[in-house]
């Protein structure tokens, strides 16, 4: 069978997935009653509603969606992986090596996220920005960052 709208189906599945996750991790909380709600009432209610909306999205994608709007198209994995990766790199190395190297490495990495890549320029930009960030946020504004590792 051909999908009417691949987007609707995908969105629906994402919603259903989150609904299942929130249901699963919230299943231990007591729900109480509508008159005396307990910690689990709202999570269950919202998970159920999200599941409903998700199911409706899937159905619409299968039978009624707009095929033109519904195409997803190819997703370039590189920018997603490198932008998220740059944040992860900074988060995981900050405590180990301190602000300056962690920020520099992370900014160099993100320089390779686009299609237009100029390594030398990226390195220079990363160095200048790291210095700027240190000067403004740490020297002038006094934000607390680890400066050296352990």
């Amino acid at each position, binding site marked *: 069978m051909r999908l009417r709208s691949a*987007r*609707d189906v995908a*969105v629906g599945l*994402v*919603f259903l997935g*989150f609904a299942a996750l*929130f249901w699963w*991790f*919230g299943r231990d*909380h007591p729900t109480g009653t*509508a*008159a*005396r*709600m*307990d*910690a689990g009432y*709202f*999570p269950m209610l*919202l998970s159920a*509603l*999200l599941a409903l*909306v*998700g199911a409706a*999205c899937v159905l*619409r994608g299968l039978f009624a969606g707009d095929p033109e709007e519904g195409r*997803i*198209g190819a*997703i*370039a994995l*590189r*920018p997603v992986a490198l*932008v*998220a990766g740059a*944040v*992860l790199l*900074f*988060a*995981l190395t*900050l*405590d180990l090596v301190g602000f300056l190297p962690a*920020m520099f490495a*992370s900014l160099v990495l*993100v*320089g390779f*996220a*686009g*299609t*237009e890549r*100029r390594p030398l*320029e*990226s390195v220079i*930009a*990363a160095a200048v*920005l790291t210095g700027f*960030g240190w000067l*403004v*946020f740490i020297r002038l*504004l006094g*934000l*607390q960052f680890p400066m050296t590792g352990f």
Partner: protein
Amino acid sequence: MDLLDNIALGFGVALTLQNIAYAFVGCVLGTLIGVLPGIGPVATIAMLLPVTYALPPVSALIMLAGIYYGAQYGGSTTSILVNLPGESASVVTCIDGYQMARNGRAGAALAAAALASFLAGTVGTLLIAAFGPLLSELAFTFGQADYFALMVLGLVCAVVLASGSLLRAVGMILLGLLFGLVGRDVNTGIARYDLGRTELIDGIGFVVVALGMFGLGEIIANLSRREEKREVFARRVSGLWLTREEFRAATPAALRGSALGSFLGILPGGGPTISAFSAYTLEKRLAGQRGTFGAGDIRGVAGPEAANNAAAQTTFIPMLTLGIPPNATMALMVGALTLHNIQPGPQVMTQNPQLFWGLIASMWIGNLMLVVLNLPLIGLWVRLLQVPYRLMVPAILMFCMIGVWSLNGSSFDLLLMAFFAVLGFVMARLGCEGAPLLLGLILGPMMEESLRRALLLSRGDWSTFITRPISATLLAVALALLVAVLLPTLRRKREEAFREE
């Protein structure tokens, strides 16, 4: 007349050379720090609070007010230029402001934001001066049931906010509400969805989600566009100032936004965010088919900007007249006052009229200064957009990472931001907008708490929402709005169905 005497007294205090200087320094510092993405008014004030200790109380408060306005306005600037909301109230500004910037109209958007804020600031200040004590009574007529109804109305606004599919917008709101549940449940103290991490006990921070989904999500989206469509910002910037048509469209929008914001700002917990969202909804409904909302409509900038600034102004009312801080920023102000040996409350107005009216006068001066300061800067900001996008990417990334770290000093928040960046990008590719999710995230906890408190107070009787006049009215408006949104969609569906047969 009393009012005029009071205002004269206020200007007498505020217009000393020294106090003008402090207002100016406050505005400059606030703008400079507030324009750094991810650092909103609360963080800015917290950072600069110690600077004001050495000053006399009136000057300190005047400077703090300047910092507050400056930071607030600085947040709008980054929202328009790079889609980075510094605080919850500027999320709405992102929607159309950033699109305007991409169309080469960043200058107009910034000018509209500055002028609308000034207009709203003037309205708000006048309201405080004339009706401050009276308006504070409003907060007491609002019960828990009424707050719940207000939140429901806010969520319906979030549906209207979406420019695409309604079904997906509803899903995004629900997802936002669920993310909003993470953390300690105020009623039972149970930590929900904390996955055993202490960092999640307070819930997922708004800034983490906003910078992830909006700031970084947008970077990923731009980088993954194909070469030929790579132009992120229009090469040619067409004029820095508003055109006559834009001016004509923006002025009434700003006026309506001011009125709405002034009202909602008085309610504790409502404040600038809900004002901005409802102003956007109002403008979008009023414009109907003729609007280009979501694609860079000036009314979508002027209305919400006016609303959030008016609300920022009237938020002072409960603090000044009752000594009760309605939000984190005002709590900071109360802290600053007590450090200067002033106990905020009704007695300030009578025992310390110099301070009270001086502050009110300086509010207006602060707003004026912001316009004077920011209009010339527009050219500079717009020129920043000419920087090649490949160089803006690392800069935005750095600001986002520093902004998020500065919240709690936690690497975990950075990991969360990466998660929301990916989620934001994926959902955008699937045709789901981020704004409804953010509104759900903000309103979720407030909605659940007020619902449960209202039911505790009514001993489990749901009729409390219909028997209280305010709550009943708000719910009726929400219902009407929902029907108005759904009807055209349903009708279109039926037409399509007929056509296909």
